[in-house]
């Protein structure tokens, strides 16, 4: 059977069983096993278990339970609630103020972690209830978290950039440097979108009524509540930048900070910690089981010859350097809808990079386009880690449909971002050239 037909059947059955409501982890795992059987035989199921073991051994993932635990403690002890109260007092008068504040927190979180899962889960647990309880539109709130949570892979440190550097041979440091400005740009663009959209449709993110707005003394008193979160952030970021810890170990510093905050709030109690630990297991476990199966799924797809498919598609693209780049972006976008980023990198980069360098493009610049596109893939339906992680934290009243719909405008904003970086490559290349 040709790889084209296989691809259709493979992703067709993924969609079919997803729509029938079987949990994602089992769909990915089951489809992998069935296809492995027909392409490679019974013994190849070993690959599925082997991928699980490989994922269990991945050190960067250790950060997930710790960052989630940190967030759960901050949430359970009321630290997070007070932070949002403060934001509301200060920015409540601004339409969409909480959404923009959430984006800011996401950006800070992104500077602490190199993966997207921890941030989405943490912000979903903390920010979503705060926004919903203040009358924010469901989809606005979901979209903000989906998009901001994904910045973890765009703003350094970033595990996707490290992988990109490993596969393509560019410098990790240059990739990190190149990600800073585009990250800031996306933050500005997304903020602009929120401001404009909320100006046009005030009910999406209601401003605090004039008579409810806090007085200045009240505002300043509320400011005390940011001290703890800021010192947690300071501990994490400071320990990374000061050469005290690796990014993964920094997650443990985050927990330490959260525990100290809990003590300050008088909430350092076994009941609180135990409950936080149990929620952490649920949230980490569901992300990890999706990862286990997703890794099995993309290695199964690769073993079927996915790379050959990309090669033959690229051979059909008519000439023209920009035509090629755009075609690549479109391919990655579509793959991003159905496959995990690591799998996409393994399948496409070996084909793309020689072409990119032959055309005379800067692989660092291309890497940034690639990573932003991956970040979009994290939240495009039907398969996107951020979508599923978010679904794991939201209350039952939020359906997958709400989450799917919420991302549309935010994806468009990011596509605008990609186009801007294509037109003005300096956005990505300026900083690395300055530093190296």
């Amino acid at each position, binding site marked *: 059977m040709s790889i084209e037909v296989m691809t259709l059947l493979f992703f067709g059955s993924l969609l079919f069983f997803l729509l029938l409501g*079987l949990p994602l982890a089992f769909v990915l795992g089951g489809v992998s096993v069935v296809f492995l059987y027909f392409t490679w035989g019974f013994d190849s199921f070993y690959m599925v278990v082997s991928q699980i073991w490989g994922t269990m051994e991945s050190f960067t993932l*250790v950060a997930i339970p710790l960052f989630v635990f940190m967030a759960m403690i901050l949430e359970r002890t009321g630290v997070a609630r007070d932070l949002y109260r403060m934001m509301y007092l200060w920015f409540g008068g601004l339409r969409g103020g909480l959404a923009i504040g959430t984006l800011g927190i996401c950006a800070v979180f992104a500077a602490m972690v190199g993966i997207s899962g921890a941030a989405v889960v943490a912000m979903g647990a903390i920010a979503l209830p705060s926004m919903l309880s203040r009358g924010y539109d469901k989809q606005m709130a979901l979209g903000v978290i989906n998009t901001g949570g994904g910045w973890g892979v765009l703003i350094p440190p970033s595990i996707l950039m490290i992988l990109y550097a490993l596969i393509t041979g560019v410098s990790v440091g240059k990739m990190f440097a190149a990600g800073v400005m585009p990250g800031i740009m996306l933050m500005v663009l997304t903020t602009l979108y929120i401001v404009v959209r909320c100006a046009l449709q005030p009910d999406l993110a209601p401003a605090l009524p004039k008579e409810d707005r806090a007085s200045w003394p009240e505002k300043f008193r509320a400011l005390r509540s940011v001290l703890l979160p800021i010192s947690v952030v300071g501990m994490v970021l400071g320990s990374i930048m000061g050469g005290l810890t690796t990014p993964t170990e920094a997650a443990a510093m985050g927990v330490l900070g959260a525990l100290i905050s809990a003590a300050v709030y008088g909430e350092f109690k076994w009941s609180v910690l135990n409950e936080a630990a149990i929620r952490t297991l649920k949230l980490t476990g569901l992300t990890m089981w999706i990862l286990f199966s997703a890794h099995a799924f993309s290695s199964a797809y690769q073993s079927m010859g996915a790379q050959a498919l990309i090669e033959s598609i690229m051979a059909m693209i008519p000439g023209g350097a920009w035509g090629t780049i755009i075609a690549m972006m479109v391919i990655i976008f579509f793959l991003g809808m159905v496959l995990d980023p690591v799998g996409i990198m393994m399948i496409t980069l070996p084909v793309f990079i020689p072409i990119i360098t032959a055309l005379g493009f800067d692989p660092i610049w291309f890497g940034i386009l690639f990573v932003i596109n991956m970040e979009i893939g994290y939240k495009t339906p039907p398969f996107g880690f951020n979508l599923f992680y978010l679904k794991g934290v939201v209350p039952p009243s939020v359906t997958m449909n709400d989450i799917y719909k919420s991302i549309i405008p935010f994806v468009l904003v990011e596509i605008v971002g990609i186009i801007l970086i294509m037109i003005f490559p300096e956005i990505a290349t300026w900083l690395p050239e300055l530093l190296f």
Partner: protein
Amino acid sequence: MSVVSAFMKGVTRLNEYVGRCIALIVFPMFVFLILEVALRYFFNSPSVWTNELTQLLFGVYAVMSGGYIMAHRGHVNVDLLHSTLKLRAQGFVDIFTSILFFIFMLALVWFSFDMASESFESRETSFSAWNPPIWPAKGAIFVASVLMLLQGIVRLLEDIAIAFNLSYYDPTERKSHSEEGEA
């Protein structure tokens, strides 16, 4: 039928208990990472075991969470179509899709046993500088798969009861249960 309900309750309780124990692993993971930072930074003597032990604990933690999450129906699915169906129709659809679940689980149980027993027979260690045994961590994949398989059977029994209006399971239980464990 009481045997069936007893089995269902027993498995669910087992997974609940295992989950509550596994959840505590986050504490030692935190402690070991902090300890390593302290040893390296303040005493200039990094240890050979903290990071690796944390890693092994993490693996066990992640894989063993599966059954507990299933017991709470916490594995994420796409409810787009599913939620529009009547309860009995959902039951039938779930019975059908469970085929794929069981294929996955049987493959996991079979090959994780294979991997774990191979590892156990040679008392496999990691051959790092610390060189701990790693067969217990590989064994955890097998244990976790079995726990998930059992919970999957419970789920299938629930779905059958819903689809065919059988009395050994009361679907209203599910509602209250899944709301109480909101995560």
